[in-house]
């Protein structure tokens, strides 16, 4: 009952609490009547949930499964017998017998009026909008048979489109003020860039002093985009420039594809969540005109080699050499949203971050060096595109540090949604295609690289390798499935005991390798606060992903998103891993090859430091 920060934590991130029967929990049912049908529901169920459980459709707009309840768009209103006013179905908890009408005249009229009001304020036309066909306001208009603007329609822009950010574009003229982005930014992610400002009719969603997004402390996670019902938020789309590169015969255009888009892009073509489209996607990319199609999982494997080695080095320096300047736990650094988060909010803790670049950037550096040399292509003629589930990757490839090859290592970060659009534009229906493999030399990757897409995946991949390096044996989990790494609880912690170590790693004999996993920056904050309080002394390695669910829930992924959808996408990835022959990064033959041929001084060696590692910027929180 007491107001607690946790209570604003989105449902998807809360640990499941099952109340006992005597506490009015399970077993305590109440009968309600909805549209004349008698229905048993559990105490405290909202009217919306009760209706959904019974296939009664209630329109919603400000409601989102991931977010705390708002009850402010009012489109879901229903009539309850004996009450003077209509009630919002999304927020009204059923605690006693109610008689509910979801389609009475009052309800229909009110909903239609609300819709007409929203439409009157909604700038633009559907056919010139990128959310055409996937817009909740448009769907509502269709559902209610809107065929005109009852209360007029604004014809002039009132806001300028904010295109300052590499990652997120804001068009407030499309905003319906549902505050899903606000609740995402403040509650779900605890970044706090967006808030409702001003009052009354002048209310608007804005940044601090309405500054450009690029100037405030946005981490570019794009979670707001995924939850925007309309086109008020979108990713910064580079596809036009990519088409230009493809059409230019002088340019050698290569694309690397991350694991998560494969697990989700089918949704853009009407498939239910959970279908892996890896091979069809390769074919589609070739049809579109990419010269080479590579697998980001390859550099994910490389990341494991580098990051795993870095961890072992840190452990050795700290435990054997007693070097107190070495920071532990080591945090993963493959999530650019997380990297920017820690740069802003915990700038004094950057030494805890692994210096490894993300797989995307490792790939870019290798393509314009190693690949260019091996294939005799001038690096300036290579255009590298990265298909990513992520909007923050767009910012990442524009970081000035990311020029290790002497060029912009990755030219364009492209989201799953934008890729799907390119595929559609090319007249391709993805599910119809025959599959094909990746191109060499970065074609084959291990299952370890693949599972990077789900929260806990990097940790699992790293453990598969680190354990084996240290002990010479496989990590002791059935089928290599390190179950403590899996699942969706916000912060997870577990340990693996290192026993029977090889002579070189004797100092780790009997050590419990303690690790943590956090996803969503709100959870990252909890971990960081614990670190600041000095409570993580015995933890060695922490994986953090900025997005809820990890990359499969990234800001560039298909819309909509929900806990259920993210679970399905993760399953698709784990299933694919299970079917692969090579499932440990260090066993990927291409990895062995590149360390023999190019990165000849080994993981964390001189060459890899130049190409595959980076440094961070103390950004701080002050908004200039």
């Amino acid at each position, binding site marked *: 009952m007491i107001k607690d920060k946790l209570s604003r934590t989105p449902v998807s991130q809360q640990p499941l609490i099952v109340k006992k029967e005597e506490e009015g929990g399970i077993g305590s049912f109440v009968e309600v009547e909805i549209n004349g049908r008698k229905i048993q529901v559990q105490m405290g169920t909202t009217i919306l949930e009760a209706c959904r459980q019974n296939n009664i459709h209630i329109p919603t707009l400000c409601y989102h499964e991931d977010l705390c309840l708002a009850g402010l768009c009012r489109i879901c209103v229903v009539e309850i017998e004996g009450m003077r006013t209509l009630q919002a179905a999304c927020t009204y908890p059923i605690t006693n017998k109610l008689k509910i009408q979801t389609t009475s005249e009052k309800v229909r009229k009110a909903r239609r009026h609300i819709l007409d009001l929203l439409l009157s304020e909604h700038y633009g036309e559907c056919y010139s909008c990128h959310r055409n066909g996937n817009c909740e306001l448009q769907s509502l208009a269709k559902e209610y048979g809107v065929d005109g603007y009852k209360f007029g329609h604004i014809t002039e822009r009132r806001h300028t489109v904010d295109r300052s950010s590499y990652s997120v574009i804001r068009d407030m003229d499309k905003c319906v003020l549902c505050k899903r982005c606000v609740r995402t930014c403040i509650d779900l992610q605890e970044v*706090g860039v967006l808030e409702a*400002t001003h009052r009354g009719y002048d209310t608007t969603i804005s940044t*601090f002093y309405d500054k450009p997004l690029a100037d405030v402390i946005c981490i570019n996670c794009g979670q707001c985009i995924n939850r925007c019902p309309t086109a008020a938020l979108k990713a910064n789309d580079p596809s036009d420039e990519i088409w230009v590169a493809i059409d230019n015969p002088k340019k050698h255009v290569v694309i690397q594809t991350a694991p998560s888009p494969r697990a989700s892009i089918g949704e853009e073509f009407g498939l239910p969540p959970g279908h892996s489209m890896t091979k069809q996607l390769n074919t589609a990319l070739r049809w579109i005109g990419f010269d080479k199609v590579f697998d980001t999982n390859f550099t994910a494997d490389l990341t494991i080699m580098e990051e795993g080695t870095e961890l072992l080095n840190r452990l050795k320096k700290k435990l054997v050499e007693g070097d107190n300047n070495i920071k532990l736990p080591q945090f993963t650094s493959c999530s650019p949203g997380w990297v920017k988060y820690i740069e802003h909010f915990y700038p004094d803790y950057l030494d805890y971050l692994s210096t490894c670049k993300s797989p995307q950037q490792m790939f870019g550096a290798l393509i314009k060096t190693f690949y260019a040399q091996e294939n005799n292509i001038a690096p300036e003629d290579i255009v590298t595109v990265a298909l990513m589930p992520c909007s923050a990757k767009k910012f990442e490839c524009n970081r000035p540090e990311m020029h290790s090859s002497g060029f912009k290592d990755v030219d364009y970060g492209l989201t799953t949604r934008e890729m799907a659009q390119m595929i559609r534009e090319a007249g391709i229906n993805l599910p119809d295609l025959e599959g094909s493999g990746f191109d060499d030399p970065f074609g084959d990757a291990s299952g370890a690289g693949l599972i990077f897409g789900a929260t806990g995946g990097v940790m699992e991949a790293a453990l598969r390798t680190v354990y084996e390096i240290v002990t010479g044996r496989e990590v002791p989990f059935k089928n290599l499935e390190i179950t403590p790494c899996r699942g969706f609880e916000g912060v997870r912690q577990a340990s693996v005991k290192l026993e029977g170590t090889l002579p070189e790693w004797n100092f780790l004999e009997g050590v419990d390798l303690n690790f943590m996993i956090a996803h969503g920056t709100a959870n990252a904050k909890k971990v960081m606060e614990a670190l600041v309080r000095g409570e993580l002394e015995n933890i060695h390695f922490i994986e953090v992903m900025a997005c809820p669910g990890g990359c499969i829930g990234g800001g560039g992924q298909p819309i909509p998103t929900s806990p259920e959808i993210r679970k399905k996408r993760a399953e698709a990835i784990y299933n694919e891993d299970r079917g692969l022959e090579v499932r440990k990064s260090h066993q990927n033959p291409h990895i062995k090859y590149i360390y023999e041929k190019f990165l000849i001084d080994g993981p964390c060696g001189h060459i890899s430091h130049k190409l595959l590692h980076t440094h961070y910027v103390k950004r701080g929180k002050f908004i200039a």
Partner: protein
Amino acid sequence: MLVSEKHGLTAEIESLAEKYGRTREALLPILQEIQMRHGYISEFAQQEIANFLDIHPVEVYGVVTFYAFLSRKPEGRYIVKLCQTIACDLADKEAIARAIERELNIKFGETTQDTKFTLQYINCMGMCDQGPAMLVNDDVYTHLTPHKAVEIIKSYK
């Protein structure tokens, strides 16, 4: 803003945070005091307040823009708030407004060049039985006539 001025403001906000507590409930009292002392709440002050209360600057900004009595830009030392709601409106607040505007040579919504006066309309101030009414800072004036209003303004000059 000069660095020394910023330091002064930070210290001031810190002492207010100590006085009202470093929790979100302290936000409005702190904003009100800063408003009262400085006539506005600067961008820098908003960020500092956010810092001390461990909330996001945009949340402070959201609150400042919500309440009519909190302002983001410097205003006159005397803020004249003339009630524009019905009872005062029917009692001819227009005549009062015109008289004050002529006297100060600015329009409502503006501040005099010497930053002494700012003219604002406010919604019902609860003096409906004695309209037209206005506030000069926190002082209430009722039963205004154009002549009386101008005399009141003069007394602050």
